[in-house]
């Protein structure tokens, strides 16, 4: 049994009085223990929605309208709020984008860490502090003992994100969901933080769902990749395999559009148009208006995800490799 198994997940938001729009339109996903998955897509593709759904955090009036999320065989969607709390922040931790927003500005780092621990464990204050210092050292925060009494504003952005990671690790989770953990940080700090997350996941055999728009970061950190477009997974597979030979025209277009791949003075490949909002999805494959391979079939039917690629006209082996 897979550690996490998501089947046919739909998330819907009401539109007007009677109708609904779907932010996720049937996503399937399995994750084994210790596996690192990258979820890639543009804004509005539904990648954060997926993370929120796993933790039962979809805000009203949105709801999971269909599907199941099994964590060790137990459907998270059927758990009571009390039971989900024993999993959320405990066995599944989350790291969000902006550490300044994640951390409470009026509480010291130590208070916030002890609070997290005490929510999930019966532990004395002294022991909790000791554990917090150990975790701060694990994420390489210099002079960890004194930092415990510091407030978030006294730390730099990189150190703050390290604190957030230390908090996420406090309860020894089996899965960490990281939603754009380095987008608010500088490149050198991003490299530090991603290297740290990668090391911690490897050392402790923690699974990771890394949500990002940055294909470079995904390539560095994850083993498997899931590319999302307009609420659906369009391509999934081994990270390096997809990066070297994408089969879905959207994945191929995204990769070709990266400036790394174009020589200097040459034009970048560009995907025409932009992703449609979920309120105005075209019929059939949502990507067809931007796709140069689209035919009438693409306008009528949604292509199923087969062999890791949801496309009626995928790139063949030679096209994909070029």
């Amino acid at each position, binding site marked *: 049994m897979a550690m996490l198994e998501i089947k046919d997940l739909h998330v819907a938001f009401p539109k007007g009085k009677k109708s609904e729009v779907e932010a996720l339109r049937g996503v399937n996903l399995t994750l084994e223990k210790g596996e690192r998955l990258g979820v890639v897509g*543009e804004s509005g593709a539904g990648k954060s929605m997926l993370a929120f759904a796993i933790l039962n955090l979809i805000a009203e009036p949105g709801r999971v309208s269909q599907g199941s999320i099994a964590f060790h065989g137990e459907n998270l969607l059927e758990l009571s709020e009390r039971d989900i709390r024993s999993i959320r922040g405990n066995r599944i931790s989350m790291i969000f984008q902006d550490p300044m927003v994640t951390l409470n500005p009026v509480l010291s780092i130590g208070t916030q860490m002890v609070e997290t621990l005490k929510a999930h464990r019966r532990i004395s204050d002294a022991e909790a502090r000791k554990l917090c210092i150990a975790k701060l050292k694990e994420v*390489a925060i210099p002079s960890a003992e004194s930092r415990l009494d510091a407030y978030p504003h006294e730390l730099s952005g990189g150190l703050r994100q390290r604190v957030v990671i230390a908090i996420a690790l406090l309860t020894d989770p089996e899965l960490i969901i990281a939603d754009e953990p380095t987008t608010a940080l500088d490149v050198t700090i991003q490299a530090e933080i991603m290297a740290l997350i990668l090391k911690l996941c490897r050392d402790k055999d923690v699974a990771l769902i890394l949500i990002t728009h940055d294909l470079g970061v995904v390539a560095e950190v994850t083993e498997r990749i899931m590319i999302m477009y307009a609420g659906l997974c369009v391509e999934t597979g081994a990270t390096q395999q997809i990066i070297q030979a994408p089969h879905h025209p959207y994945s191929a277009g995204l990769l070709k559009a990266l400036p790394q791949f174009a020589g*200097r003075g040459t034009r970048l490949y560009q995907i025409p148009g932009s992703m449609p909002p979920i309120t105005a999805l075209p019929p059939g494959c949502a990507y067809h208006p931007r796709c140069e391979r689209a035919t009438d079939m693409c306008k009528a039917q949604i292509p199923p995800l087969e062999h890791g690629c949801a496309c009626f006209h995928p790139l063949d082996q030679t096209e994909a490799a070029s």
Partner: protein
Amino acid sequence: MTDAIVETKGIEVRFPLPTHFLAREKPVLHALNGVDIAIQPGESFCVVGESGCGKTTLGRTIMGLQSPTAGEIYFNGQRIDQMDEAARKPIRRDMQMVFQNPYASLNPRRNVFETLAEPIRHLMPEKTGPEVRAQVEEVLAATGCDPSWQRKLPHEFSGGQRQRIAIARALVTNPAFIVADEPISALDVSIQAQILNLLDDLQAERGLTYLFITHDLSVVEHFGTRVAVMYLGRVMELAETDTLFSAPKHPYTRLLLDAIPKIEGGSFDNPREPGELPDPVNMPPGCPFAPRCPMAEARCRTERPELRTLDNGTQAACHFAE
């Protein structure tokens, strides 16, 4: 080099910080500490660095949105930093700016035509109504905007479309020089390529000169002719783009290049030490990069290295660069 379109000589910008009324010394933030650059016509001169390095302040100071505390700025050989507003007006036609966030830089209550007509009316008062309309239409067509957009408001557009409108606004007075401050970093990957191609095309058609401010080195590698790497208000290295990427001379440049996630993976495998920027208020006397530098010696902490030209034409501010 007197044929430079824009030249700065030793510009400094200091921001006074709020002080306690009894304090003897008034703290000052050094945003720019003597920057000398000369941009040749037709260049895409890139400025890279992390947040707080002064790259945006440099762009704003050249544009006259920020007055320098010291130093000189020349535009086509004419000194502009001490001009009054009236004398500067004809020069403003020739230098325009594109900002990072098209959600913030367009007035939400003004339709596209008004947004685009405003700079012409203000800077080219001799133009008649029909001439203004013709000019707006010409620039909309040149930037790939539909003529029907003129009566629409910014909220009706996607991020990429808004950035096209912001570029159109910058071009509407037919400038020769554009400061583009992170023009693509608020956009999705597939849209970034569209905007970069547009900037390339416009440069070819109109002979524009760009000062391109970014934190993204892969964009620099694709787009830039020359690059200045900045750190804490100083230029650390200035080189031709190809030279900078093939033979980086300053240890900070190497750190930046090393931090770029590689699509083949592997560069985040080793943990990295947390790097801290020194306090820009109490700057250390020596090299600003010394606290993070793997090569730093005692000399670096006391004696600030000047920017000097090396054998291969690169300028670097490091005692050990050769």
